[in-house]
């Protein structure tokens, strides 16, 4: 099987090389059949990589430890669900996932554009196959997923317990889909520049892919935040970590592009800016992929002296140099057809939004790469922390949310005073009312949070007003009931109203972020059974300890050998609110030096957070039990001395019983944060709005079908 996998990779490399040659020859010499053949090699690549991916997936599910990646990231005690997800937890497997997703998305993009822009598409094919070839050659020459060891080890190391969390199944595929989709606009943008066809057509062709990239990347980021919040024992969802930042940067430039492309479509302006944004987004996506694998920056996600630095730096260098060369050499073709008429117009608001987004991206870029910058400039590696990021990103985020309420309602070209009054009177009043209510209700004086709430209210009002007016107009025209009119309105203008829904979701999300980060209560302390403490308005009592043994009975289904936890009773003003069961899972390690019993629990311990989520607040709890007490250590020592590995699990039962009988003081971490759930709800709203916007409009499908039938009829007539 591994041999077949290796063969697939070699074949994939050959297909990439052939496809690049064929597309370039075809477009240069005007030989359409070669460009066609180049496009088909992308489909072939997708087929070959699908086979390779399936082979690796089967190896994981069958516990084939002859595969080095399987032995390193999976084990028999890893539950089947997590074995399936373990494929992309290793460097090699994640490279394969990247290349595979790239081939699938590229096939889809090239299939949908097969009848249009043949020259641009041919260049795009060559560029996409170039990326494909790059990742396949990394797998052939640097980190092959199909390396084997004979004889196969009897047991594997197991999936890192930190990654045993349900979203592990979808977070990496989503994020990688976002990253790979970012390269499609890049390929078509470069293709348009190379073919010297920089009209709005290429933008129209890739618009949907740019949107999909943005959507997938956004969901991937949010799922990562959710994982951080409910699996890592620190209770936060964003830490300005280098790898988090790396995924946020292309998302920001992608957001900017999705807005400014509308100006190019409508007014033929900002061509240089748009094509630069597309190229920057693709390059940032590659840099994001690179950051995880290079080990050049300190991050909780990316470690071990990875070896892929040189090839990636070369690729990024080529991308940046190529982009600059193309934009500069084609600048004459990229002249604007119009000029900005007024600073009070939708164009200029979009432009402002673009500047804020790119500014945010620059701040994050500078902060993320600061260790490298400072080392290069001063010889001393230094880094900036979350307070530095917050200082710039918080005000910029405020402006961004405010603009997301202004943009949709302000007029194109030039807004008049009457127009402004008509559109902004109600939203401004709602925002002021919100401010007055917040101040009167005695909310803690946190200026940025209060400003964010007011901006959010402004967005809800301005977009609500748009929906209201649209529905009213339809009702007047078609005499429909309000819900029917609303549905018809959204269905007929999917992109516009889907976009509005996205704006609402973003405002909801930011309100959640502002509230949860500004008005949070946290407490960290040691408690013994029976003791209690106050966190904000809540009282948490440590009722009694809990313990489960063997992977079979592990309550969290992650395959831990021993799990120690607590029953916590949460009350508010004497009323019962929730019973929470946080625990810490202990996993087996492969280190024989820890002894027969010690190695059963010697792996990395992982917190299983328990939280009571609510629409107004989350009560979040984590426990760190003390397993190093003399009594427990004595059991481990005696077990190590007297029990052979096959019987060692007996001692785990004794450990659990001893812990329950004489529970030592345990360390707890409690957090009460308001409105956290709205971050996830906001994300879902964005997702829903995004799907509406991305879905092909029925009229467009009909138009295409009718055009095709018309063409067929004309063809038939010509032959008759």
């Amino acid at each position: 099987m591994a041999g077949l996998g290796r063969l697939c990779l070699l074949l994939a490399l050959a297909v990439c090389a052939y496809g690049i040659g064929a597309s370039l020859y075809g477009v240069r010499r005007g030989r359409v059949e070669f460009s066609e053949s180049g496009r088909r090699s992308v489909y072939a690549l997708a087929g070959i990589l699908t086979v390779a991916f399936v082979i690796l997936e089967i190896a994981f599910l069958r516990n084939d430890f002859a595969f080095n990646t399987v032995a390193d990231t999976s084990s028999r005690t890893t539950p089947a669900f997590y074995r399936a997800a373990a494929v992309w937890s290793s460097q090699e497997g994640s490279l394969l996932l990247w290349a595979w997703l790239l081939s699938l998305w590229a096939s889809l993009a090239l299939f949908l554009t097969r009848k249009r822009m043949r020259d641009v598409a041919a260049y795009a094919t060559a560029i996409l196959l170039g990326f494909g070839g790059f990742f396949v050659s990394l797998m052939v020459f640097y980190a092959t997923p199909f390396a084997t060891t004979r004889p196969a080890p009897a047991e594997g190391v197991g999936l890192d317990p930190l990654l045993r969390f349900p979203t592990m199944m979808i977070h990496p595929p989503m994020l990688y889909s976002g990253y790979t989709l970012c390269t499609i606009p890049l390929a078509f943008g470069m293709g348009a520049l190379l073919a010297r066809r920089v009209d709005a057509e290429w933008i129209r062709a890739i618009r949907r892919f740019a949107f999909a990239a943005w959507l997938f990347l956004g969901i991937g980021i949010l799922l990562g935040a959710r994982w951080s919040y409910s699996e890592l024992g620190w209770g936060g969802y964003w830490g300005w970590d280098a790898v988090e930042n790396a995924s946020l940067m292309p998302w920001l430039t992608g957001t900017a592009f999705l807005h400014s492309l509308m100006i190019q479509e409508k007014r033929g302006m900002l061509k240089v800016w748009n094509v630069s944004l597309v190229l920057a987004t693709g390059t940032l996506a590659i840099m994001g992929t690179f950051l995880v694998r290079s080990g050049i920056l300190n991050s909780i996600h990316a470690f071990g002296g990875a070896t892929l630095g040189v090839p990636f730096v070369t690729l990024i260098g080529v991308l940046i140099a190529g982009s600059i060369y193309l934009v500069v050499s084609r600048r004459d073709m990229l002249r604007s057809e119009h000029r900005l008429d007024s600073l009070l117009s939708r164009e200029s608001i979009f432009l402002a939004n673009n500047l804020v987004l790119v500014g945010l991206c620059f701040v994050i870029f500078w902060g993320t790469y600061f260790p490298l910058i400072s080392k290069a400039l001063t010889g001393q590696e230094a880094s900036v922390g979350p307070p530095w990021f917050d200082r710039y990103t918080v005000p910029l985020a405020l402006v961004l949310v405010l603009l997301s309420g202004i943009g949709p309602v302000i007029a194109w070209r030039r807004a008049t005073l009457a127009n402004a009054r008509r559109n902004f009177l109600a939203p401004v009043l709602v925002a002021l009312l919100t401010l007055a209510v917040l101040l009167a209700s005695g909310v803690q004086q946190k200026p940025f949070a209060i400003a964010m709430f007011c901006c959010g209210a402004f967005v809800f009002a301005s977009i609500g007003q748009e929906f209201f007016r649209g529905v009213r107009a339809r009702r007047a025209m078609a005499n429909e009931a309000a819900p029917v009119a609303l549905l018809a309105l959204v269905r007929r203008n999917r992109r516009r109203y889907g976009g509005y829904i996205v704006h609402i979701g973003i405002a909801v999300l930011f309100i959640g972020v502002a509230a949860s980060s500004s008005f949070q209560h946290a407490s960290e302390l040691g408690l013994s059974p029976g003791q209690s403490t106050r966190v904000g308005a809540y009282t948490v009592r440590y009722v009694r300890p809990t313990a489960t043994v063997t992977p079979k009975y592990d309550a969290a289904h992650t395959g831990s050998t021993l799990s120690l936890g607590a029953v916590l009773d949460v009350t508010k003003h004497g009323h019962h609110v929730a019973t929470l069961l946080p625990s810490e899972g202990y996993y087996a390690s492969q280190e024989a030096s820890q002894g027969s019993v010690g190695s059963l629990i010697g792996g990395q311990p992982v917190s299983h957070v328990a939280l009571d989520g609510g629409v107004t607040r989350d009560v979040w709890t984590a426990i760190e039990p003390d397993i190093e007490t003399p009594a427990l250590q004595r059991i481990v020592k005696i077990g190590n001395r007297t029990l052979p590995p096959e019987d060692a699990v007996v001692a785990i039962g004794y450990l659990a019983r001893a812990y329950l009988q004489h529970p030592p003081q345990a360390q707890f971490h409690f957090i009460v944060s308001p409105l956290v759930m709205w971050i996830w709800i906001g994300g879902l709203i964005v997702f829903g709005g995004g799907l509406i916007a991305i879905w092909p409009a029925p009229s467009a499908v009909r138009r295409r079908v009718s055009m095709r039938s018309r063409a067929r009829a004309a063809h038939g007539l010509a032959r008759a």
Partner: protein
Amino acid sequence: MNPARKRTVRLVVALSAAVVLASALIYTSFSAASPALSPTQLVHEAQPGRSYQLTGTVVQGSVHREGAVLHFGVEDRVGGTTIPLDYTGTVPDPFREGREVIVTVEKQGDQFVGERDSLITKCPSKYKTAPPSEKQNS
């Protein structure tokens, strides 16, 4: 003012604003940054009241807890200087003796104190270069 001139003025204003903002950003990043140091460098270079990013390995047998305070020692990757630390706040799951950590520290008197919640543990099992299966074989 004629439109061309107006546009130039606008462009100059916008560009100068961008330059001012970028310089502020760059200036504050240098003043707010904490240098990354190894234990040996920290002993020689640390000044009281400034924060540093200490990178090193947790010393075997040095970890013990006293209430909310976690005590542990950090040494150079190849051994040598050891810095004892008092740390409060979140301890990441992968934290243990022998692992590489990054923690923001400040010198208070003769003592080094870890900044709250700043402890990061390098995760050795992710993307490692020499998998144990190869080692078993060799």
